[in-house]
């Protein structure tokens, strides 16, 4: 295993973790806003606030970790992606700011629960995946031109690309699906039958669109990036496994059985699909300009980063375990029986 592969695997793993925890966060905000809109607010607000408030900063760090890490391991990505993503990334930052300020001002602070704010917060949860996921389309190539040695993004081509839109739709559907399955489990643990029923319904609604758009993207790649498509087909068995895991989740949720296992299967489904996609993208970070080899940092920095990463994990894993034990696996807290907020 080369240093390049270790580096990209670590980053991809953290991006995957971000996709999962952020999806839960984004989707929950949207469901919360939707139920406020249809006057079912009391059903979800408690569940959403008890789970999300203590952990959202941690969620955000996964994202920061990814973009700081990729500059560390692959500094040339700063040149290509940094130059071209100014506008979409700035929009994503503004949307993240809306979410962060909602936690700061509405849940920690003076409890400003203005409806407009709840809607904005909920909507930002849908717009964020839409703002971030086009990067995946851009990485497939064809949208970045080099002009006088400087990269620039062809907005029009991107905007007209069915591939980009499919990825956006998938990201939104997946956010809602992941979130609904997780929250069904959380609500069931909290013993909140009403919320469980509602969230289970959402989970089943969004399962279909998720799998349909995901399959659609594979076929769109055939036209857009044949090389990547061929690599994807070589890994067909991983996607097949992912699909089986998907069926398992839907089955359990449908039968109202073992929501915890349903969520674990869902994580497995996305894990296999995400890594199959990532592996088939190898070695390109950006078709056809950038591979993990020609953008890689020097050896001494790579080793230093990996050592720092291992030391950091040694510190973080026990801390994360403590956090989850207190807020995710503590029965009294989940059920809302104990409130020790400062």
């Amino acid at each position: 295993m080369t240093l390049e592969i270790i580096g990209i695997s670590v980053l991809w793993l953290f991006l995957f973790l971000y996709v999962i925890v952020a999806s839960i966060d984004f989707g929950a905000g949207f469901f919360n806003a939707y139920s406020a809109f249809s006057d079912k607010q009391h059903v979800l607000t408690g569940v959403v606030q008890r789970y999300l408030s203590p952990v959202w900063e941690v969620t955000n760090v996964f994202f920061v970790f990814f973009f700081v890490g990729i500059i560390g391991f692959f500094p040339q990505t700063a040149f290509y992606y940094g130059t071209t993503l100014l506008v979409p990334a700035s929009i994503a930052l503004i949307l993240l700011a809306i979410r962060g300020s909602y936690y700061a001002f509405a849940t920690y602070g003076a409890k400003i629960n203005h409806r407009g704010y709840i809607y904005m917060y909920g909507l930002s949860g849908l717009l964020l995946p839409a703002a971030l996921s086009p990067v995946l389309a851009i990485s497939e190539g064809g949208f970045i031109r080099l002009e006088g040695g400087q990269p620039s993004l062809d907005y029009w081509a991107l905007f007209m690309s069915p591939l980009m839109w499919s990825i956006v739709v998938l990201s939104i559907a997946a956010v809602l699906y992941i979130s609904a399955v997780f929250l069904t489990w959380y609500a069931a643990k909290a013993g909140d039958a009403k919320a469980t029923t509602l969230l289970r319904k959402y989970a089943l609604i969004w399962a279909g669109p998720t799998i349909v758009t995901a399959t659609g993207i594979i076929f769109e790649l055939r036209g857009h990036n044949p090389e990547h498509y061929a690599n994807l087909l070589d890994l067909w068995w991983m996607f097949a496994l992912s699909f089986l895991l998907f069926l398992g989740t839907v089955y359990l949720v449908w039968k109202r059985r073992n929501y915890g296992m349903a969520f674990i299967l869902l994580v497995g489904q996305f894990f296999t699909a995400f890594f199959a996609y990532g592996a088939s993208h190898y070695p390109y970070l950006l078709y056809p300009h950038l591979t993990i080899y020609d953008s890689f940092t020097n050896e001494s920095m790579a080793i230093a980063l990996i050592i720092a990463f291992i030391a950091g994990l040694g510190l973080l894993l026990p801390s994360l375990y403590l956090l989850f034990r207190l807020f995710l696996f503590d029965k009294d807290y989940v059920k809302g029986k104990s409130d020790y907020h400062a």
Partner: protein
Amino acid sequence: MGFEDTALQSRILTLMTLSFHIIYATVGVGVPLMIMIAQWVGIRKKDEHYILLARRWARGFVITVAVGVVTGTAIGLQLSLLWPNFMQMAGNVIALPLFMEVFAFFFEAIFLGIYLYTWDRFEDQRKHFLLLIPVAVGAAASSVFITIVNSFMNAPQGFEVLNGELVNISPLLAMFSPAVPTKVAHVLATAFMTSAFVLASIAAYRLMRGSNHIYHKKALFLTMKLGLVFSIATAIIGDFSGKYLAEYQPEKLAAAEWHFETEAEADLILFGVLDGEEAKYAIRIPYALSILAHGVPNAEVIGLNEFPEDEIPPLWIHYLFDTMVTLGMWLAFFSFVYVVGAWRGWSIITKTWFRWLTVMTGPLAMLAIQAGWWFTEVGRQPWILRGYMKTSEGATTSGNVDLMIVLFAGLYLILGIGTVVVLSRMYKRNPVEDELAQRESNKGGEEQ
């Protein structure tokens, strides 16, 4: 040149983001220590007031942290969005502390969440207190790592350039550049000092607005004492910073001091206006610049004449330097008077005009922080990486930076107003007197 210049636009947006972020970052680094001290004093003295002080500070703190996370994410991403050419180069050499900063913040965020949601969950207050240590350590470590990156920009080392290629890269050597000791110490001490004064301002303001509760008096005395300690520390470290500059970035010190010709027995110039190379209406302190730079009155201080004209920082940084130093001195002096006055029971410290001056300490300290960062950043110009890369070479070539300036200005305005409104509303709705009374009656209930 002009506003179409993306390098200039990128500088403006970065300046805006950093100036806004540093407010939250400073509070974010300093306040955990203040909460720790208050809670510790409360546990030791078995004084409910100090415990409640810690708790109320923590409530406000979490709001500033949340906004700080937002602005911190913004600057983290903007570094690559606005300075892609710089980050491509710097990523090869100084990525390690940036990476470590994420871990430090990660650590802090986890324990902050736990600390906040576990008040009164433990029988033994000391267990809850222990949760605060990783928060304070993580916060301080974050600022240390980021300051290390900034130090590298000022005094780059740990690599060589051979035919335009970076060779012999040593990430550790790059991390421990000569700028690190003074810069890190200065950042930490001023963050603690500023946080102490900001909290002192709040207590003084409450005392002025009618509340005469002993709670506020305890808060004020504690924070002024801490402010005094850290402002003295800041002054001492500031002196070492001068010596660092004289050795490694003499052009920055010379520009700040309008020191045009290399000479011994150099005067320190305070204030004034520049007329050609002549400082008018300025206060000149004989030998002081030589002492600041090298510790002895007859030492030679390098002047601007030794540098090519296009490598000299803008001369207006003199005012930033003066603002920072004057405010720092004033805060040390003022807190000294307050602390002595409180010990000796001088009535002057409770006079309205004196209270107003006390209220001003927080904003003035924050102003000094701004002046200091502007000084160090503008004073490094025209370099983004001193001696290796000019700021204009590091900037993005992308369009639309001007639009982003407008977008982010709006965002920061809303976040700033939101912070003030939410914080003041939160404390007004739940005044400390009510909360103390309520805790008292709760206790009564439990005894029965």
